[in-house]
């Protein structure tokens, strides 16, 4: 009986989607009630960052390993705008996103000249260049001390309590997520998936593949910029850590853990990683004589395990199980692709 009801319910995808959307919103609104509010804000910022990365990795098939450049440059920009002009923080974050997009244009134009693993290496290298520049440009970024004392201005409202700032910052992230969702479900998004599946055919159908790649790269950078700016304002400081390659790696873990190409899965990946890191940083993990305090060790272990055993990610696995239960065939050409490897032509099957 319940199984039948479940089937009926599942057969109404629109209702299903609405329920999911409301549940997601509800969780986002309730988050600071049961999680330490600054950590809740971290989750939201990283979630938007990971979703932005998934636009590239999941929906266009491009692994950017240099997204720290956009997150980090936005963090600095938001800080500089907020400190120097005293502008309301949403304005600072918007400015940060614009700067991230401007920075993304030359990087994208160069990076799309390479594909696959080359693309990852090139984006990683350019992000490292941004890191070196941030390190040297002390007058603006504060070098190794970072940029401190970023104010949370909003028309005289007192947002010093992280609990209230969460609700002030949440709309920005939600707008970012909405943009990502619109992009994926637009004709533009369908072309991106076509490019992921078969670049040569997309090109022969008349789509300017490289221009599409540059466009989605810049959009993704802009959303990463929103997230990075929000993160910097929330913490009140921006540091070199934000531009470093470990940050690029961290957001990739989140997306892979959540499920590549599932869009919302990235938010779950972000929440899990932020929570685990927070736990390790505050209490550490004690296994016998081992006292693990390094977040890198845990993140690395998660990375290895996910890549080896759990490539669909959390969302991808759930979607896969649901689909199997409903006997619905796996969508091949859709945004809910569970696994990049199933879609990208295997590069010369090596032994």
């Amino acid at each position, binding site marked *: 009986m319940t199984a039948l009801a479940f089937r009926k319910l599942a057969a109404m995808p629109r209702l299903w989607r609405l329920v999911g959307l409301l549940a997601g919103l509800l969780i986002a609104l309730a988050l600071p009630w049961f999680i330490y509010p600054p950590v809740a804000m971290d989750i939201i910022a990283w979630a938007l960052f990971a979703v932005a990365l998934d636009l590239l990795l999941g929906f266009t098939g491009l692994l950017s390993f240099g997204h720290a450049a956009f997150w980090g440059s936005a963090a600095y920009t938001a800080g500089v705008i907020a400190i120097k002009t005293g502008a309301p923080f949403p304005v600072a974050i918007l400015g940060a996103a614009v700067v991230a997009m401007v920075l993304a244009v030359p990087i994208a134009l160069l990076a799309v000249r390479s594909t*696959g*693993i080359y693309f*990852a290496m090139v984006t*990683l*290298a350019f992000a490292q260049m941004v890191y070196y520049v941030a390190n040297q440009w002390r007058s603006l970024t504060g070098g190794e001390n970072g940029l401190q004392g970023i104010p949370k201005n909003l028309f005289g409202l007192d947002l010093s309590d992280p609990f209230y700032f969460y609700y002030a910052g949440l709309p920005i992230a939600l707008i970012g997520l909405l943009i990502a969702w619109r992009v994926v479900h637009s004709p533009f998004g369908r072309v991106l998936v076509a490019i992921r599946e078969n670049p040569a055919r997309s090109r022969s159908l008349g789509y300017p593949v490289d221009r599409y790649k540059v466009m989605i790269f810049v959009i993704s950078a802009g959303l990463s910029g929103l997230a990075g700016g929000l993160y910097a304002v929330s913490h009140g400081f921006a540091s070199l850590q934000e531009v470093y390659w470990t940050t690029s790696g961290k957001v*990739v873990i989140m997306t892979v853990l959540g499920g590549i190409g599932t869009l919302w899965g990235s938010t779950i990946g972000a929440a899990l990683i932020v929570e685990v890191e927070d736990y390790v940083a505050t209490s550490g993990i004690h296994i016998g004589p081992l006292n693990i305090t390094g977040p890198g*060790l845990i993140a690395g272990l998660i*990375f290895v395990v996910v890549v080896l055993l759990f490539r669909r990610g959390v969302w991808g696995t759930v979607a896969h199980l649901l689909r199997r239960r409903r006997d619905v065939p796996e969508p091949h050409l859709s945004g809910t692709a569970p696994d990049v490897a199933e879609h990208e032509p295997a590069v*010369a099957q090596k*032994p």
Partner: protein
Amino acid sequence: MSELLQHAFNGLVNGSFYALLALGLSVIFGMLGVVNFAHGAFYMLGAFGAFILLSEANLGFWPALVIVPLVLGGLGMGLERVLVRRLVALDPLYNFLLTFGLTLILQDLLRMKYGSQAQPYPQPAGLGGSLNLGLFDYPAYQVFVLGFSVLVSLGAWLLLARTRIGMIVRAATERPELTRALGINVGRWISPVFGVGIALAGLSGVLAAPMRAVSPLMGADLIILVFAVVVIGGLGSIFGSVAAGFLIGMLQALGNVYVPGLATTSVFIVMAIVLLWRPAGLFGREETAV
């Protein structure tokens, strides 16, 4: 003039580390199609290997130069068998992510054991002083590093170009199916090649120990520079990666003198130019860029 030469020489010495690391990356990429992110971590392990041998077993530089690459090479072969092999048939990005995770683990393990600060490592016996190179005096150890890495690079080239093993490896790199059809057991060579690549990283780590600070993060930034070097030289091109390694080393050293502000970023600017001009790298073939 002699000052310029001295800077160029400095650059060549730095470049020899890039060259050795890029060589190992290229060998592995050529055979397996895997970009090994953990290469910098293995370089760091090489330096720590030398440090640990000295402090725990009182074995100096020369024994370390033999033992550490052998041990790390064996470790690399094990890594290939246990982890990397499982993902080789999938998109190469997965192995990139796997080795990235390994990098984080290795760095943190060493940091938990030895802390973040640099460990001292003495100059090896017999290479302490400086050598008169005609126009200027130069630390003998640096001269040794340069000569040794040129020899290793030449050796790798001879091995690949002139021996039967090299022929098999090159054939397996270019046309694995065809090579297998000719009756050669390609799979047999994969683990050893991966091991050799890792051993090269360990070797450069041992070489680095006496002249650079031995610390858990010593390979962290280096590996990204080496990625840029490999993109410039052409991934999978043995000659390209070695040449680009020395070239970038020189460029950085001279850049440091004439345009100090650009010293750290010059590599990436060169990479941008190469991407515009020859996306497959200076010495790479177009097909390797896929």
